[in-house]
């Protein structure tokens, strides 16, 4: 482990100490100079870049994105989208520089670094160096950090509020958990004023709509300063989000990568909450890995928001490997596990994502409180031995809407293995729970999460990451009119609509699955008046579940004649949160191998 770390560190140091780009970072870029820098990059690399105006600010200033891709004129849905933004807060100038440096360095190394070249060819990389152009222009008018009342210390955008004051904190204006006074302010003069409503500001609306428009969103980084922190969701509360083990692993890996460059160890701890933050929204709405690096200087360092220009390059250098690590994670399957027999490692996978052939137990039929062998097969597409691969296995009540790790998933075991190019089989001992699942059956779902320093899962959603798979498969015998039970739990923090469907086209022609009516199912779960109103506003069709509610769905099986062989019955559920904007479904399902008598 130590030897490998040393080798990785040495390679990184060698590569970052020679800045390969074409821009100058001897001073901070003024707003016009940022535009000029983007133009310079585009003119120098016309085949790999395009500049897109994604919208305009409150003051009518364009918000620009630099798209980096092997074919930037085409929006390719098979390529993952990784996004880096900077300057939500106007005074945090160094964040702009780190974003520009990232763009510059990626483009310069495209022709010299084979691994980066291959990664970049598989992705669309978006760099938005200035989220708050009005605020940025204002900070550049005059002043210094020595004068806290001067424009240089301005943080917010430049909205004229109705009471005559100016500005909304753009990183308190995002829609998830917006407006909590434990993490933002409703006083217009305050620097953390959250605005009149979620997404009240054009700047956040523009960025939200841009992210909603991405077809294969993989990761999100929003640069801020200062204090040398590397933060992850949640920001609005001290509680852990779903998927905390995954987010923590990525954050710690990135902190180590940053520290390896110039010895600055960014902390992952912050002692106060902030609601309405961008990364919370991204994780909640998209389940896409999202991080907030708070850049140099350290809390005890000199300069604060006005850090010296001489810090730009070392700060950008140290953040470069963490940024490219996320690119590498997003680019391709390294070590991976199949979602179903047809899975080739593509993200997202197609077909039913809960039928991993790479997860099985011996014996196959489970009993309660029984020790079984859990077998896991890990594939390796890198062509080289991947050492120190962590394989975490979980089990859970299979309540549709599964992600791994999820709040109810219980860790079966964790193994650290070496995976050769031919793949690796792992066996873990698993003692099944005492008793049944919540509806009285001996049926659990097993999920596996694979992590490696050079290949991290960037989500917890099974079909969106080749690092995660699950097996939710039950064998059952039915007669005409038998009931197969499925259940769904709303693991989201907001009320959601559950939509159920099954594989009617794959069933024998005389087979029919009878689901209870939505009305009947809804009676089992009372919903609160605000949820009822949201449901009516959004014209929902499915069953509505409050956060944490579970609904058991008895599915009646009808058939006229007994088929010659088993029938695969697949029942899929999707949870659609009751939110404004794009409602991203989170779903999973069941497969029953049914023997009819």
């Amino acid at each position, binding site marked *: 482990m130590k030897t490998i770390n040393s080798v990785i560190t040495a390679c990184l140091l060698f590569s970052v100490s020679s800045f390969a780009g074409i821009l100058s970072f001897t001073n901070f870029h003024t707003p016009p100079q940022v535009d000029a820098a983007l133009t310079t990059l585009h003119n120098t690399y016309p085949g790999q870049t395009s500049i897109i105006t994604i919208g305009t600010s409150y003051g009518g200033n364009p918000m620009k994105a630099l798209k980096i891709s092997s074919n930037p004129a085409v929006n390719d849905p098979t390529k993952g989208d990784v996004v880096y933004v900077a300057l939500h807060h106007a005074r945090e100038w160094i964040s702009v520089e780190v974003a520009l440096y990232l763009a510059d360095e990626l483009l310069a190394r495209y022709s010299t670094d084979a691994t980066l070249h291959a990664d970049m060819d598989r992705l669309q990389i978006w760099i938005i160096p200035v989220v708050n152009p009005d605020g940025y222009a204002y900070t550049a008018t005059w002043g210094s950090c020595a004068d806290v009342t001067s424009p240089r210390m301005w943080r917010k955008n430049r909205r004229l509020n109705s009471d005559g004051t100016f500005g909304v904190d753009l990183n308190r204006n995002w829609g998830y958990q917006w407006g909590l006074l434990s993490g933002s302010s409703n006083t217009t003069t305050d620097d953390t004023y959250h605005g009149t409503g979620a997404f009240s500001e054009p700047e956040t609306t523009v960025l939200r709509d841009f992210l909603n428009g991405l077809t294969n969103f993989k990761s999100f980084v929003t640069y801020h300063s200062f204090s040398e922190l590397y933060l992850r969701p949640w920001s609005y509360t001290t509680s852990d989000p779903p998927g905390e083990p995954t987010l923590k692993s990525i954050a710690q890996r990135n902190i180590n990568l940053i520290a390896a460059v110039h010895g600055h160890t960014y902390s992952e701890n912050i002692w106060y909450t902030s609601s309405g933050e961008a990364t919370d929204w991204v994780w909640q709405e998209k389940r896409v890995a999202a991080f907030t690096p708070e850049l140099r200087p350290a809390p005890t360092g000199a300069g604060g928001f006005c850090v010296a220009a001489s810090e730009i390059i070392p700060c950008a250098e140290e953040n470069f490997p963490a940024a490219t690590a996320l690119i590498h994670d997003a680019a391709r399957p390294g070590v991976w596990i199949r979602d179903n027999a047809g899975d080739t490692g593509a993200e997202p996978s197609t077909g039913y994502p809960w039928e991993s052939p790479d997860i099985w137990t011996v014996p196959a039929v489970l009993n309660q409180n029984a020790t079984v062998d859990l077998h896991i097969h890990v594939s390796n597409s890198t062509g080289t031995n991947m050492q120190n691969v962590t394989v975490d296995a979980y089990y859970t009540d299979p309540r549709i809407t599964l992600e791994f790790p999820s709040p109810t998933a219980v860790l079966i075991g964790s193994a650290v293995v070496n995976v050769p190019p031919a793949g690796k089989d792992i066996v873990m001992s698993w003692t099944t729970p005492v008793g049944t699942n919540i509806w009285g059956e001996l049926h659990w779902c097993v999920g596996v999460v694979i992590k490696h320093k050079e290949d991290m899962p960037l989500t917890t959603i099974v079909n969106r990451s080749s690092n995660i798979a699950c097996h939710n498969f039950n064998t059952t015998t039915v007669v005409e009119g038998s009931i197969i039970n499925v259940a769904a739990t709303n693991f989201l923090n*907001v009320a959601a609509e559950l939509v159920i469907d099954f594989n009617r086209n794959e069933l024998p022609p005389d087979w029919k699955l009878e689901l209870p009516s939505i009305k009947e199912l809804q009676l089992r779960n009372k919903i609160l008046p605000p949820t009822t109103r949201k449901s009516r506003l959004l014209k929902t069709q499915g069953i509505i579940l409050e956060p944490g509610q579970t609904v058991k769905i008895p599915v009646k099986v009808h058939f006229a004649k007994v088929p010659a062989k088993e029938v695969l019955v697949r029942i899929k559920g999707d949870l659609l949160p009751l939110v404004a904007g794009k409602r991203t479904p989170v779903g999973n399902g069941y497969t029953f191998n049914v023997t009819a008598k």
Partner: protein
Amino acid sequence: MSALLLFTNFCSCHRNTKGNMDLEPTDKRPVYHTTVGDADEAEILQQQLLVETQNVMVPDLWFYAKDESTLNKMKDLGYDISKSELKHVYSKVVKSEPLTDEQIKAFKIQLINREKDHFVIRGTLEQLSALQNKGIKLMPLDYEPRPREVKVIVSRTEDVQKASEAGLDIYSTQIGKEREIIIYGGAFDYAIDAMKNLKFNVSIIK
């Protein structure tokens, strides 16, 4: 250009014939009030019924409605709607002659900052009118109120959260030589008062 806009906006308050500040609402559109479960609901209303949010402070939502049919649709959905008095809805940040704590409390004004020869305060148009009617001199704000740079020393990590909730905009936190927690940030006087009431050690740097 932005400097010009800054001063233009600050000078949009006029004095009436009595020499008092004009505290009439400049936006005369009707504002309605209802309650929502959370901010998501306000957003969904905005999206689905094109309701324009004036302000959300959960559970309160103040909004402008496109037309009567929008209000009727909302009522059909179960919303209780009332028309708001504009002077209760709109606020202003103004300068006033120095006030006592009792006056601030009595008129339910929010103190922002105490300066040498004036206070910066915020109130609804009604609250400010009441103040003005009592002979308190109000003046338009001709500069942007800014926080003071402060250093706050606390002993527990949970106090950092309390300082934030009191209104401190935190720049950085660090551990001192005696394991105390030193917070640097920006705070208006109302927040400084709140932190002092929490017995935090607050010193104004600038």
